């Protein structure tokens, strides 16, 4: 088991290196010079001599292999370098913003579970009923509407027309918990809406599946109360596939936060990523992408370990 685990970790590290290299190289191949872009912000004419001077200062004039090796050297020391734009350490930026993105994903998933699981269960229990039909239609609609449309509509109705909520932004939890939750609500709803639909469908399908199982019939036959049958035998068994889907989808949400964070001005990891891509701020782009892919790899590794723990065939075979 230890040897197997060691192998898995090694593979993850290798994959992280591959990602870092691909991102680093791709960025340098894509047209756009960070020094020129910075000095010509807002469409002004940058002085070529000043651009050359800045390139030199930023170390961009060095051969690409040289830059790559010092990047890898930094990486082994856990140093992702500094932003080309303002010399700010990439690590500090990620440390500040990653928790906010994770919080958003967590809140979105929570909403999805709280709404999706009971609704899915209820719909399954009353299959073909009015609620089932309406909710299934709504789920299809939620999946179909792009997240930025929902986001913009929420801002228009709740912030601009009703003036119930701020249009977006962020207040630290420690500073003002009520305001923090208020600002979290809209982006969390926007990000959770697709997942809600997925969880609803999944819950409905797996509850239906569980309802047709022999052990449910047996439980009913031996005279258990319907509530007990539902909670102990149906929902409990139906939860496993729902959790698998949730685990997979949370990873996908990490990529889906880009639009939501932008629309609601939520200062997570997406804003620096967008800004960095636009400015060709190489160390920042590589740092953020590496963090996101690192999280993916980590989730995968944990999944592998969990599966292996559950099923010995995986670690031996």
């Amino acid at each position, binding site marked *: 088991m230890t040897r197997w685990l060691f192998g898995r970790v090694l593979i993850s590290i290798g994959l992280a290196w591959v990602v870092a290299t691909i991102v680093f190289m791709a960025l340098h191949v894509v047209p756009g010079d960070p020094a020129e872009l910075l000095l010509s912000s807002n469409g002004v004419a940058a002085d070529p001599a000043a651009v050359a001077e800045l390139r030199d200062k930023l170390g961009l004039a060095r051969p690409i292999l040289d830059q790559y090796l010092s990047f890898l050297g930094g990486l082994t020391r856990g140093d992702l370098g500094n932003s080309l734009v303002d010399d700010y350490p990439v690590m500090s930026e990620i440390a500040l913003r990653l928790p906010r993105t994770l919080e958003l994903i967590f809140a979105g998933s929570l909403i999805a579970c709280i709404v999706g699981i009971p609704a899915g269960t*209820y719909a399954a229990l009353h299959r073909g009923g009015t609620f089932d039909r309406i909710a299934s239609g709504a789920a299809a609609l939620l999946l179909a509407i792009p997240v930025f449309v929902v986001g913009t509509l929420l801002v228009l109705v709740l*912030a601009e027309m009703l003036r119930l909520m*701020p249009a*977006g932004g962020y207040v630290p939890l420690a500073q003002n918990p009520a305001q923090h939750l208020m600002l979290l609500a809209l982006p969390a709803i926007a990000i959770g809406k697709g997942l809600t639909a997925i969880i609803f469908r999944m819950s409905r399908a797996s509850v239906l599946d569980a309802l047709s199982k022999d052990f449910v019939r047996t439980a009913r036959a031996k005279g258990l109360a319907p509530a007990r049958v539902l909670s102990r035998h149906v929902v409990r068994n139906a939860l496993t596939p729902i959790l698998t889907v949730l685990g997979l989808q949370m990873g996908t949400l990490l990529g889906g936060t880009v639009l939501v964070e932008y629309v609601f001005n939520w200062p997570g990891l997406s804003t620096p990523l967008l800004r960095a891509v636009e400015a060709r701020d190489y160390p920042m782009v590589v740092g953020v992408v590496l963090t996101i892919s690192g999280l993916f790899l980590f989730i995968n590794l944990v999944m592998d370990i969990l599966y292996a723990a559950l099923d010995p065939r995986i670690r031996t075979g």
Partner: protein
Amino acid sequence: MTTTRRSFLQASMFLGAGTALPFLSLPARAQRSAGVLRYGLSAFPPNLQPWVSTGAASGTVKLLIHRSLVAYDSKGELRGELATSWSIDDQGAWVFKLRKDAVFHNGDPVTADDVKWSIEEIGGEKSTAYMRTQFQSISKVEILDPQTVRLVTKEPLATLPTWFGNYNTFIISRKSTTSEPIGCGPFRIAAQERGSWIELTPFDKFYKPGFPKLKGVRFIVYADDNLRQAALVSGDVDVIEYVPWQSMSAVENDPRLKLDAVEGPFMCVLFNGSKPPFNDPRVRRAVAHAVKRDDIVKAAFFGRGKPLEGVPIVAGTPWYDEKLAHGWNYDPARAKALLAEAGFANGFQATMLATAQYGMHKDTAEVVQQYLGAIGIQSELRLPDWPTRVNLGGRGQYDLAIHGLSADSNDPDGLTPYIDTSLPPNYVRSFGLSAPRTTAALDRGRAEFDLARRAEIYKEMQRAALEEVPMAGLAWRQQGYGMDRSVQGFANMPGALTGLSGATLEETWFG
């Protein structure tokens, strides 16, 4: 217990209400603390280095932290800041008299030594300053006394004082370091979070008694145009910049808000003059006459702009001439005739570079493409992201390009970076094009001190440019600030100076 439909519904509703409660319990509004202005910024300043140009958002913040020798007032006139007066001496050098009461944020007085040091650093060999080349034409900075500096230039320079009205030419303390510039403006940075917000507090030793009037400014970044507008409407901020054109009427019609918009920046066509067909000025003129500008104003700017049928000279200035301003009027017959004269009676194919990243560039390009098609120029649009657009533009990898610009000042010399074809290649100007008469007139205008004669020279420059077409103007676009009605004293500066309007936050108060 049995699960009935009712009990399940009740349980679900209770659960739902419980989770929604924290979100609905308070009327959510971002709080306004007394006297602190909340300003919706369009982008977070890449950095706040005092001499490096990093965009208008940085400029707005820098204008409050720093001061230069002069600045523009809300009417667009130059006024003294660190300098009380300035004049030309009999040898053609500029002499600036400094005020005695200005101090830096570290408490040191602002002296002629700091002015000399700042000017020499901007023009230094290792400088990355925006005005580097211009300042290198200052051959000597002499200190006549602790309050007087004399700037000797290689050539006579009538427009030199305007250089110090720019937001990239601040005077900072000699004790400054790259990471910590020490300014002497009305505010200083109290706190900031990279990418999100910046808080400024007033500097209590600012040299103008009673200023700034605000107790602070909080800049909050709203990169999305619509969200910035929503933040203003919902009262989360007091002022926003770059009101989206489609939302301008909504701001005007809202009884709680007001709009201050001016026509300053402009859209234009750039040419690759290094190869046929656009190396022929007749073909460039044909393009300039082919486009009906009204359609651009309507399509790209929702009517919030006006046609630009000549060299971009601001109306109402001494250099403006009504007839010259319409020298490239919409005249498709003439455009076709010019093409035929140049040997392209049957038209030709061309590539048109713009960017999809900014809607106004793309929309303008689409209108231009239609009108060029009507005279036989079939253009293929290329709409990469902005960094690629800059890269391709600088290397001349296009036939035609659509661009949006703003001059450095309302003086025609402010157009030099865009129409002086002797300058090295840059994505902001036409590539490999030669307009010698225009360039020569710009040089003469810069060296002439007499206003009447300068006006004449610049009219001549416009006549030359109308023939040589170093670029073709398309449309002026409005730049608008939206604000709460209680905000007083904040003004959108006229014409090209609109980007400097942040400086008026010094005089802003809540009425």
